[in-house]
C-alpha cells in the first residue's frame, strides 16, 4: 500500500492547488444590486431590453422559485446559500458598442489567451472579415462563443455559419433578432416550474448561447462556448438553447473555468436541447471550474440542469462530459426519448479530488416506441472526495421495445475517498429491456508497481491507468478536445504534471 499511500499524499498536497486557471481579470464591471427580488429580475430584463413576454416568463419563474426550497436528496453537503448575498448580473463595462474583436477589452482578450482559447486568431465579429492571408485553416474551424461572467463577449465565425443557415449567437441577441424562434422553444424542455435551480436560472439568466440548425443542414464546424466566471460574489446563470431542425446535425462543446477564490460561487446553468425528426445533437462538456483548495476552501457550486428532448422520430441526442472541477457538482444531463426510434446517449468521466463532491449521472425517459439509450459512466475518486453516480432509466406504457444499457464503473485512488452508485429503474411495460452493470475497483498497488518497474514515474503510472479506465468515454469526444481533456485529467490527478 506504500505507493498508493504516497500517491494519495502527493495528490492531497498538490492536486487541487495546481489549478491553472485561477487568475483574476481586472476590469470594470456593470453589476445589478446584490440580492434577489422582482426588482432584480426587472433590472436584468431591462438591461437587455427584453420583450414583455420574456419579462413575464422570468417573473413567473421567480414566483415559482419562491415557493420551493433547495433540494437535499443529493449526496453532497454544503453550508446554506444566502441567495440575497449574491450578485445576479455582472457585465464587463464596454467603453462603446463593439464592432470588431479589437474593441473587446484587451484584459478580457488576455484572459482568453491565458485560457488557451484562440479568440484572436480565429475571431471574426459580425461582419468583420479576416485580414488577407489571415484566413484560418479549414480543418481547424471551431466557432466560439465566449461568455465572460454573465455576458457573451465574442462569437467567432458568425458570418460563415450564417451562410450555411446556422444561427449561433448569444441568446440575448437571439431574443432580439429571432424572438419567435426563441419564444417557440425556450422553456419547452426545462419549464419555469422545473427544479429549484432551474427556476432560479429562468428568473435571472443573463446570457448563454443560442443555436438553430435548419432542416437538412449539417453544421459545417464544431460549435463551442467557453464560460468564465470572473467577478466576486457573482452567480453565473447561463441559458443555452440548441434546436436541431429535421434531419440536421450539430456538435457542440462547452468549456468552463473560474478564478481561484476563497468564497464559493454559484453556477446554475440551464441547457435545453431540441432534436426534431432525424436530427442529431452531440453535446460535449469539459468542465473545469475551480474546485477549491487542498483544505476544501472555495470553489464553484455547479448546480446545473441539462436536458435534451428527442422530440422527433429517429432523433438522437448524445451527452459527453468530462467533469474535473467544481467544489460541488450536481448535474444530471437527461434525454426525453419522445420520438419513436429516438436514441439517447450519456458518456461521462467525473473526477473528484481533494474535498470535491460529485453527485452526477443521467436520466433517460423512454416515452416513444423502440427508443434506446446507452450510458457509460466512469467515476474516479481521489483524495477525500465523494463521487456518486445517480441514474434513472424509465419506460412508460407506450415505450414498447425500449432498451437501455448502463455501464457504471468507479475507480478509487487511496482509501479516504468514496464512490457510490444509485440506479433507479422504472419500467411500466414488460417489453422494455434494461441492463445495468456496475463495478468499483481500487487502483491496484501491483498494477502501479508493474508500470513503475518499467520506468514510469508514479504520476505517469497513475495517469496511464486512469486513461485506460476512461478510454471508452474519451473516444466519444471530438478529437482535439479529447487531447485537451486528457491533459486536464493528468493535471487534476497529479498536480505536478504539465
Amino acid at each position, binding site marked *: 500500500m506504500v505507493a498508493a499511500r504516497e500517491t494519495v499524499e502527493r495528490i492531497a498536497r498538490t492536486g487541487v492547488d495546481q489549478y491553472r486557471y485561477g487568475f483574476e481579470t481586472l476590469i470594470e464591471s456593470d453589476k445589478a444590486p446584490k440580492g434577489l427580488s422582482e426588482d432584480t429580475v426587472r433590472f436584468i430584463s431591462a438591461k437587455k431590453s427584453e420583450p414583455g413576454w420574456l419579462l413575464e416568463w422570468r417573473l413567473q419563474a421567480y414566483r415559482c422559485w419562491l415557493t420551493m426550497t433547495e433540494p437535499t436528496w443529493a449526496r453532497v453537503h454544503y453550508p446554506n446559500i444566502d441567495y440575497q448575498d449574491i450578485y445576479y448580473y455582472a457585465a464587463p463595462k464596454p467603453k462603446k458598442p463593439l464592432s470588431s474583436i479589437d474593441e473587446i477589452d484587451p484584459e478580457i482578450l488576455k484572459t482568453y489567451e491565458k485560457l488557451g482559447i484562440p479568440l484572436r486568431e480565429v475571431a471574426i465579429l459580425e461582419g468583420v472579415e479576416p485580414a488577407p492571408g489571415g484566413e484560418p485553416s479549414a480543418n481547424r474551424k471551431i466557432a466560439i462563443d465566449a461568455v465572460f461572467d454573465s455576458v457573451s463577449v465574442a462569437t467567432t465565425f458568425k458570418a460563415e455559419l450564417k451562410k450555411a443557415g446556422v444561427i449561433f449567437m448569444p441568446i440575448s441577441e437571439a431574443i432580439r433578432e429571432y424572438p419567435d424562434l426563441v419564444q417557440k422553444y425556450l422553456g419547452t424542455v426545462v419549464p419555469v416550474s422545473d427544479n429549484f435551480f432551474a427556476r432560479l436560472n429562468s428568473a435571472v439568466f443573463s446570457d448563454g448561447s443560442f443555436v438553430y440548425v435548419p432542416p437538412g443542414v449539417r453544421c459545417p464546424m464544431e460549435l463551442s462556448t467557453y464560460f468564465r466566471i470572473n467577478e466576486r460574489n457573482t452567480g453565473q446563470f447561463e441559458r443555452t438553447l440548441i434546436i436541431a431542425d429535421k434531419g440536421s446535425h450539430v456538435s457542440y462543446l462547452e468549456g468552463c473555468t473560474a478564478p481561484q477564490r476563497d468564497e464559493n460561487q454559484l453556477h446554475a446553468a440551464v441547457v435545453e436541447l431540441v432534436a426534431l425528426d432525424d436530427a442529431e445533437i452531440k453535446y460535449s462538456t469539459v468542465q473545469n471550474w475551480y474546485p477549491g483548495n487542498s483544505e476544501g476552501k472555495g470553489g464553484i457550486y455547479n448546480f446545473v440542469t441539462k436536458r435534451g428532448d428527442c422530440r422527433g422520430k429517429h432523433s438522437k441526442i448524445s451527452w459527453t462530459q468530462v467533469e474535473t472541477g467544481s467544489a460541488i457538482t450536481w448535474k444530471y444531463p437527461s434525454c426525453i426519448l419522445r420520438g419513436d426510434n429516438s436514441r439517447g446517449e450519456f458518456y461521462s468521466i467525473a473526477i473528484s479530488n481533494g474535498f470535491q463532491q460529485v453527485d452526477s449521472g443521467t436520466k433517460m425517459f423512454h416515452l416513444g416506441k423502440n427508443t434506446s439509450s446507452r450510458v457509460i459512466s466512469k467515476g474516479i475518486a481521489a483524495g477525500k472526495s465523494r463521487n456518486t453516480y445517480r441514474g434513472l432509466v424509465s419506460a412508460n406504457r407506450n415505450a414498447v421495445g425500449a432498451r437501455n444499457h448502463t455501464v457504471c464503473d468507479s475507480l478509487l485512488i487511496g482509501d479516504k475517498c468514496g464512490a457510490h452508485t444509485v440506479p433507479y429503474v422504472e419500467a411500466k411495460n414488460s417489453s422494455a429491456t434494461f441492463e445495468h452493470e456496475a463495478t468499483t475497483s481500487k487502483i491496484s498497488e501491483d498494477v502501479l508497481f508493474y508500470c513503475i518497474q518499467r520506468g514510469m514515474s508514479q504520476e505517469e503510472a497513475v495517469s496511464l*491507468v486512469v486513461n*485506460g479506465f476512461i478510454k471508452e468515454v474519451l473516444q466519444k469526444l471530438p478529437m482535439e478536445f479529447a487531447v485537451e481533456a486528457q491533459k486536464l485529467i493528468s493535471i487534476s490527478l497529479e498536480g505536478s504534471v504539465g
Partner: protein
Amino acid sequence: MPLLEVRNLHVCVEGREILHGLDLTVNAGKVHAIMGPNGSGKSTLSHVITGKPGYQITAGRLLFKGEDLLAMRPDQRAAKGLFLAFQYPVEIPGVTTMNFLRTALNAQRKARGQSGYSTPHFLKKARTAAKQLNIPQSMLKRGVNVGFSGGEKKRNEILQMALFEPDLCILDEIDSGLDIDALRIVADGINAMRSPDRSMIMITHYQRLLNYVVPDVVHVMSKGRVVKSGDKQLALELEASGYAQFEDAA
C-alpha cells in the same frame, strides 16, 4: 566490480522476517539460476531488488553497478538497467500494449537524458521484436495482458525485456505455464540477449529451462537465504534428489 551485490540482506513483510541475511553476487555477462522451494523468498528477493513498496529492509546492502539501490526510486532503478519479468504479470485494461511499451521506453530514455523515440521508429522496433517472439501484431493493440493466455503474458514480458535492453534481467518463473514450443521461443529470446555486458537471474523450479538457457551459476535458496551455489551440475542434482538435503543447512 560486480554488476549486482547483495550483502547480508534482511527483509520483513508485515512484521515477519522473510529474508534472513541473504548474499548474492552477479558479475557482468553471467547467467544465474535461483532454485528453491515454494515460499523460500525468491520472488521477495526480486521485488526488493527492483524496489517494490511494502518491504522493510532491516539490514544489509544492495549495490547495482556499485551504486546503492536502496537510495533509488524503482523507476530510477529501471532507467539504470534493472528489469523484472514478473511471476504474475498484471492486466491493464484500456491501455494498449503498444502505448504501454512506448510510454515506458520513453520514460526510461528521458530519465537517462536520451531523446524519446519517434512514433515510426518505435513502431518498427516493437514490431520487429514482437515478430521474433512470435507475438502477433494484433496482440500489441490489445490492453496490456488483458485476456492473454498464461504463455502470452510470459512472452509479453520477454518482449519488454528485448525492447528495454536492460543490463540485469530478473526472470521470475518465466517458464511456468509455457508449452514446449513457447518455452523454446522464450529461451531463444533470452539467449539472443545474452551478451558480455548483460546479466540474468532466472528464478525457476525446473531443470528444463536450464537445458535451453544454460546458466553459469546455480544457487539454491531455502528459508530466506542462499544455502548453496554451484555450476549447472547443481541443478541436475536437485532434480534427482530434491531440496531436503538443504533444509538443515538453512
